[in-house]
Structures are given as structure tokens and as C-alpha cells.
């Protein structure tokens, strides 16, 4: 086997050195009935060309090179070439958790920089080294709010990502808790009056996402004021971090749960991504996950260590702030490189391009006679009402155009049957937007969609 740095002769000598007659000797203490006595039913080992063949075949079935209008928590942004060039260095991706600080300063300093950039983006005082993803970061943020407040009520905007809400329910159901969901207004934002009416002396957390699942921008200050009037914590959820290039950060929130995928992490069928929790200084001790902090060595030189580990499972065991053990260091590194490259001006310009493309798409849909729902300010997603069955009917036409269309909302919002969530990032050229609009536009009785497109 090409990965194993040994030979049968060396194995024989090693067995001799340890006084074993055969390799079976080393497994003899496994009771006989536990032993597998047949070969695994897995094909013989394959060469690199065979492996490449298989995966290239699989990749070809996944619409490579198509324009995509899917967002909904996973955003396709251009990934500058230095990201993969840098993270492909073995010193980054073949290292593990920086327990031994003296030979892990690279990882530690990168995490420290990542934490800093997340604080700058979100307006929070501290951020952790990352968690699994946005959905679990949101659930962990709610658990954190329960610990801080000693209360049990959870109020969540229904305009927050439906899968994030599903994860939250999985996390809290066990404790006999349930999140109370608050509807949205005709403009697409959370119904703040209904939200406030749902708050009481036992409310621990108010969870609001912005831009929300429909792409609409929520009012952080109003949400925070409502939560704070009742002594609850506001958890601000951000699934599309590029929005922070132009939108006001949730500085009034108590906890921010952020998905960092948009910052240079591949869409990659849903993962791996990196969630982050950021918060205010006063809640630091309740924060789950790893933290890198500045330290000095014996000669007074600056370095970094993992710190405040006593919050974590390997020390506090059943009393830990979370059971989380890993972070998503390599994904956080991608995000740190992405943010360094785009920087102060680039992130703003990128956000503005997303806004511009989305505004253009909204106008194009309206001009084609389609109803764009939710008129509040939006970032890079919009909801278009096509009419029931239209999204499915348009699939063949979209296929011909090599376009992946929007996400039908019916599965999570039955009342929005016929509506699709369309995401327009900077990666989508104007021509693709026009082809999408044409494919979705109400078709004249006999028209072939290809003709419709050429009409534009």
C-alpha cells in the first residue's frame, strides 16, 4: 500500500523485536467471537488515476460550470487564488489543535487574527476560534443565553434560516424547551410588535437573522431594544457575512452567531463551513469553543496560546460550556486570508456589487411581469412569486441554459407556495440574470423558452 512506509521484511523484523510470532499475536487478546475472519466487502485498493476517474465522473453530475442562483445560507463568492495556494501547505492542513504553543504559533496567530477580524466586522468585543457552522453556532448561542440569564424562554424570528431553527429545536427539545416562532410582515421583516408581545420575564433569548432568510435586512437596534426591555438577550444571526461589508453591524446585540462560509470557504455541497460566536466582554466566561490569546515567553517576546480552557470539556467535563472539542481552524484560516485580501475597501466594494446585481435582478423580474415579494431593503437575495408549479416547470429550460435556479420556498413556508428565493452574488453575470428571468417569466402559450431568451 503506497501510503505505508514499511515493507513485509521490516514488519517481520519488528515483530521479532517485540517478541511476537505473527501479527495475529498482537490481536490475540480480542475475544475470538469479536474477530472478523473474512475480508471486508470493499473492492481492492485503487490507483490514483482510478480514483480521479471516479470522482471526476461524480463531479460531472453536479452541474459544474453552471451559473447558480442558490443562496439560502450557502453563498458562492469568488475565492481568490492565494487561499487554496496557502492552505495547501502541509504546515497548515496537516497540523492539529495547537496544544503545544511553541510549535503551533502559525495556527495560533492566524486564529488570533481571525478572532480580531470577526470582532471588527460584528462590532463585538470577543469572538471564538470558530464552531461547526452557522446553524450550530446559533443553537450554541441560545444555550449560552440560557446559562447567562438563568431563564428558559426562547423567541425566534420565523424569517431566520429554517434549517438553523430545526437545529435549534433538536438542541433544546431534550431539555423540555421549545422555541416560540414569530412571523414576518408583508415587507419581509420580522413582526417586531408580535415579537415584543411574546416576550416575558422568562425570556432568555430573542433570535433574529439579518439579512434574513428572504434577504431582507432587519433592524438590529429595534430588535435589541425590544429584547432588553424584557431583560432578554438579543442573538443576532448572520448567515451571509459579506453583508457586513456594507450593513451596520449588530453592535446592540448581546451575542452574534455568524456563518463565515461566504468569506472564501467553498459552497461544497454544504460543508465544511465555519460558525463563529462573538459576544460582549461581560459574557466571555459563558462563551463556548476555543480561544487564542496573547502571551509572552520567558524572554518577553509576544506569542499566542489557547487560553481560558477551563470553560471546555477536556477540563470541566460534564460542567463545560459545550461538548465541542474541535473548531474549524482550516476554514477560519480561509476566511482570514479572504478578509486580508479584500480588506477594508474590498469587502465594501464586494458588498456593493452584490447589492447592485440583486437590485438589477429585482427590476428585471418586475419588468418581466413577475411579482417580487417583500419590498424592504435587501442584500443579495430576493423572493419572486412565480406561481405554484412554475419553478419545477422551468427546470428543463434552466438546464438547457446551464443555470441552477432559485430555491422553492414551499418546503419551509407552505404559505409561499410558488415563490422562489433567488440569490445574486457578484459571480453571476448580467446575461445569466437575464436568462433566468426569461426562463421564469410567464410564457406565451406556444413559446419555446430558448426563443424567449434570444428575445432579450
Amino acid at each position, binding site marked *: 500500500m503506497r501510503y505505508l512506509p514499511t515493507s513485509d521484511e521490516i514488519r517481520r523484523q519488528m515483530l521479532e523485536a517485540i517478541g511476537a510470532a505473527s501479527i495475529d499475536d498482537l490481536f490475540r487478546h480480542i475475544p475470538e467471537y469479536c474477530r472478523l475472519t473474512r475480508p471486508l466487502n470493499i473492492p481492492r485498493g485503487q490507483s490514483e488515476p482510478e480514483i480521479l476517474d471516479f470522482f471526476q465522473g461524480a463531479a460531472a453530475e453536479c*452541474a459544474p460550470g453552471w451559473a447558480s442562483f442558490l443562496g439560502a445560507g450557502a453563498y458562492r463568492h469568488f475565492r481568490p487564488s492565494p487561499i487554496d495556494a496557502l492552505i495547501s501547505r502541509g504546515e497548515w492542513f496537516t497540523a492539529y489543535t495547537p496544544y503545544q504553543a511553541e510549535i503551533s504559533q502559525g495556527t495560533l496567530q492566524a486564529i488570533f487574527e481571525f478572532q480580531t477580524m470577526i470582532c471588527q466586522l460584528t462590532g463585538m468585543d470577543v469572538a471564538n476560534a470558530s464552531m461547526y457552522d452557522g446553524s450550530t453556532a446559533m443553537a450554541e448561542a441560545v444555550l449560552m443565553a440560557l446559562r447567562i440569564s438563568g431563564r428558559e424562554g426562547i423567541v425566534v424570528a420565523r424569517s431566520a434560516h429554517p434549517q438553523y431553527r430545526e437545529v435549534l429545536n433538536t438542541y433544546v427539545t431534550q431539555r423540555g424547551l421549545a422555541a416560540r416562532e414569530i412571523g414576518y410582515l408583508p415587507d419581509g421583516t420580522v413582526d417586531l410588535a408580535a415579537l415584543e408581545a411574546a416576550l416575558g420575564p422568562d425570556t432568555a433569548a430573542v433570535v433574529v437573522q439579518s439579512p434574513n432568510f428572504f434577504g431582507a435586512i432587519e433592524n438590529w437596534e429595534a430588535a435589541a431594544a425590544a429584547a432588553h426591555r424584557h431583560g432578554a438577550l438579543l442573538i443576532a444571526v448572520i448567515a451571509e457575512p459579506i453583508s457586513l461589508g456594507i450593513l451596520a453591524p449588530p453592535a446592540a446585540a448581546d451575542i452574534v452567531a455568524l456563518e463565515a462560509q461566504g468569506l472564501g470557504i467553498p459552497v*461544497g455541497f454544504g460543508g*465544511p463551513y465555519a460558525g463563529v460566536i462573538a459576544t460582549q466582554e461581560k459574557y466571555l466566561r459563558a462563551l463556548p469553543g476555543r480561544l487564542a490569546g496573547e502571551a509572552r515567553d520567558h524572554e518577553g517576546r509576544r506569542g499566542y496560546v489557547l487560553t481560558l480552557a477551563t470553560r471546555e470539556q477536556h477540563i470541566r467535563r460534564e460542567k463545560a460550556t459545550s461538548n465541542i472539542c474541535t473548531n474549524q481552524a482550516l476554514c477560519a484560516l480561509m476566511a482570514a486570508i479572504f478578509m486580508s485580501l479584500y480588506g477594508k*475597501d474590498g469587502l465594501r466594494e464586494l458588498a456593493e456589487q452584490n447589492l447592485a446585481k440583486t437590485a438589477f435582478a429585482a427590476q428585471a423580474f418586475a419588468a418581466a411581469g413577475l411579482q417580487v415579494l417583500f419590498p424592504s*431593503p435587501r442584500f443579495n437575495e430576493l423572493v419572486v412569486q412565480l406561481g405554484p408549479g412554475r419553478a419545477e416547470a422551468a427546470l428543463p429550460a434552466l438546464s438547457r441554459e446551464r443555470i441552477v435556479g432559485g430555491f422553492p420556498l414551499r418546503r419551509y413556508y407552505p404559505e409561499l407556495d410558488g415563490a422562489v428565493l433567488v440569490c445574486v452574488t457578484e459571480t453571476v453575470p448580467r446575461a445569466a440574470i437575464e436568462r433566468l428571468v426569461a426562463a421564469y417569466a410567464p410564457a406565451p402559450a406556444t413559446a419555446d423558452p430558448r426563443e424567449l431568451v434570444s428575445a432579450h
Partner: protein
Amino acid sequence: MAITRASRHLVQNEPLIFERSAAGKRGYQLPPLDVPAADLTGLGRLRRDQIADFPEVSELEVIRHFTRLSTWNYGVDTGLYPLGSCTMKYNPRVNEQVARLEGLAQGHPLQPEELSQGALRIMHLLSRYLLEITGMDAITLQPAAGAHGEMTGILMIHALLSARGEARHKVLIPDSAHGTNPATAAIAGYQVQNLRSNARGTVDLADLDRVMTDDVAALMLTNPNTLGLFEEDIHRIADLIHERGGLLYMDGANMNALVGRARPGDFGVDVMHLNLHKTFSTPHGGGGPGAGPVAVKSELEPFLPIPVITAGADGRLRADYDRPRTIGRMRSFYGNFGMFVRALAYIMANGCDGLKQTTEDAVLNANYIRRGLEGAYALPYDRPCMHECVFSDQKQQAHGVSTGDIAKRLIDYGFHPYTVSFPLVVRGAMMIEPTESAGRDELDEFIAALRAIAAEAETEPERVKSAPHTTRLSRLDEVSAARQPILRWRR
């Protein structure tokens, strides 16, 4: 012994990226907009000011910055990384290449199923192989890491017991377990009851018999355990748990000792998680991402998280969301898909023979180290080990030298340290897992280095206690860092 394996080398200093920043520098260029510019007035107060102190650097500076930082790290590519319980094996390059194929790296998790068949096939095939390897009946790939898999498994156990109309409140956990086990049980709402190890380092059957009541939902067992020892009484343990209505959860962190040699499904395990980043070679990435699939026996299958990948009669694959008894969703989308691609590539590269050979080499290497260090370090459980061996600093403590000191001194000899002070059942533990990726020459060097350090501990203990001496920085002051935490840069 003179240090021959490692020598000093020019290493660049590098400040924080913020300290490289200057107004007006840039590391990006966007294509010109092909639509009218955005009208920002509509945003009003929703618009932000500039992101204060965000970096402004050029592309070359970013490349140099993160390249220089990388040279301060030690990875599996650098050398032996015998971190016990973490399975730091080789991360094959073809895995990285296939994970970056456009269709897979750019595919969207909400793409219509007709446009996702390739991705679904990867998940389906990986699931099939993992079930064959574990001997279990059904699986979810969704959990993002081992601890997340533990939580998934415990929630499924809770769901099954609830369906049986039973409310049990306790989870049993051996004192040698990973910290994630008790933390998981607690976060899932269970009381944790610790289980003592016996003099042989395995579960004490008498203690288990005493605490296994009808209030116990499950035993969370790591097998082989963190001492690298196989639980030889596994059938009696499983029978005892099952007879009294509980379930057996296996922490599969050490599955790399069993692949092709024994299957948890054949020795009474009801639920287990796997760590794709340990046994199946996906990179550790400086602390993640990992992936923690959970395999179960058929009785637990209805409770798997949604969605479940299923194959139709026509061979078309789909994601099934219509599962009324599911525990719900553990994470958005399908989980850490990129890790599934890598794990599958690894299994394909090895095949049935390679997987078994890999297990055997991992066990052979651990036993070789165990024999090689005998006499120099105390061996609290003197039995054949599996994929890792645990020594202690008992002999060196006489000279004031601890496991942490020895670990730091190993760095000077050119090795990554072993796992320090874990498992907790061994005072001053030195937990060594060479994996199959170490050749004999490297093992011999490692053994020689640790033997040299054992001698130094007697003759010049201060040298060991003040190590490392060759790194960019000397030992960092963790106490001050924790007393006055500085967790971000500020101007």
C-alpha cells in the same frame, strides 16, 4: 544522545496582519460591474461606516504573511506526530485534489436532486463502506465532528427509550473516557455517573453491575479505550447493559485499531460515531474541520437525523426528509461533505487489504514503541496494547521532571509531543500513538530521543524543565495569558 534529527533554520519574523496594514494598499481587484451601481441611499441607517482597522495589504504581503506563519507550525508532513488519541496519520494528496473538483467544490447543497446525483452517490457509497467496516445497520453522515456525533447518538438513544415509554436519567462513563463524553451526556440532559477502571485498565465489571440500574440509559464506552486496551469483557458488558434495558454507545475515536479486524456491530454496540479525521485520513486542519458520522443498529434507524440518503429502485438517489420519528436536524445541509469526499478517496485507495494492513501496522508500531521504551519510563498497565500506548512520568518525577517537560523537550529532538496528562486515570500520563504512517527508522529515532530525555532527566533535569530550547519562542506564560486575557488586537 546528540540531537541529530533537527537543526536550526532561518525563520522569518512576522507581525500581525494589522501591523502590516497601511491605508490605500489593496490585495484584490473586482471585475467592473455589468449592471448599474447600487443606490445606497435606500439603506439609510442600515448602512455601516468603514470597518475600523480592517487590514489593507497587497496580495504578496498576504502570501508572505501566511507562508511565514506556516513555518512556525509542525504538521504530519513535517514528521512524526504521535499525539495519542488523535490519530495523526498521512493525509493523502489525491484526497485534496478530488475535493477541489469544480462540481464538488462549487455544488450547492440545495441544488435539485437531479443535479446532485454525483454528490449523493459519494455519500451513499461512503455510507455503505462505513457500515461494512463497523458491522452496523444504518448511518448518518451529518454530524460535524466526533463530539457532535456523540450528541447525535445520545439524542437517538433518548428518542428510542422515550418511544419505549422509558424515562431514564443517567449515562455511565468510564473514568478513562474523553472529556467530550461527559460533556455530551450533560448537554443532552443526562446525569453523568462515572465508572471506575479496574487494575487492568478496563471497565470494572463489579462496579458496572452495581451502578447499572433501570435509571441508566446508556454506557458510553471507548473501545479500545484511551489506554489503548481492548475491553476484553465486551460481551459481558454489552449483555449486562442490554439485560437491564440500556444501550451501548461506542466512542469510535479509536476505530483505527479495529478496521478489518473486528466490527463493533458484532460485539454488541448499538450506536457509535466515527471520526473521519482520525481513522479515515481527512486532514486535521490545525483543529478542524472533522466529521463524525453515527452508525446504528436497525432499532435506532427511525431516529436518524434528516435528511437520510436513500436509493430508489431505478438507482436514483434522493434525500429523504419525510421521517416522522427523526430526532430532527443536527446541522445545516448534509454535514461536512468535503470530508466525505476525502474519506471515500482514502477507503478506495486502500481497499479491503490496505485497510486491514493499515490497522495492523498501527498496532505493530504502538507495540514497538511500547517495547522500545520499557525500562526508561513507567508503564502503568503492562499488557499488549493496540494502536497507542500510555506511559507515565513516575520515574522522572523523582527528579522533578513531569510529562509536560518531557513533551517540550521532545520538540528539541525534532518531534511533535505525545498527548500530555491524558487519560486522567494515569497520573502524569504520556499517551503515544505513532499510527501506521511512521516507518521503523523514524520509530527508532523517536525511541532514542525519549530514552535520551529520560537520561537527561536524571543528569541535567533543568535542561528538560526549561525546554524547548530550539523554537522561535521559549515557553509561553499561560498563567498571565489567562489572568489578563487579550483575545484580539487593538490599535
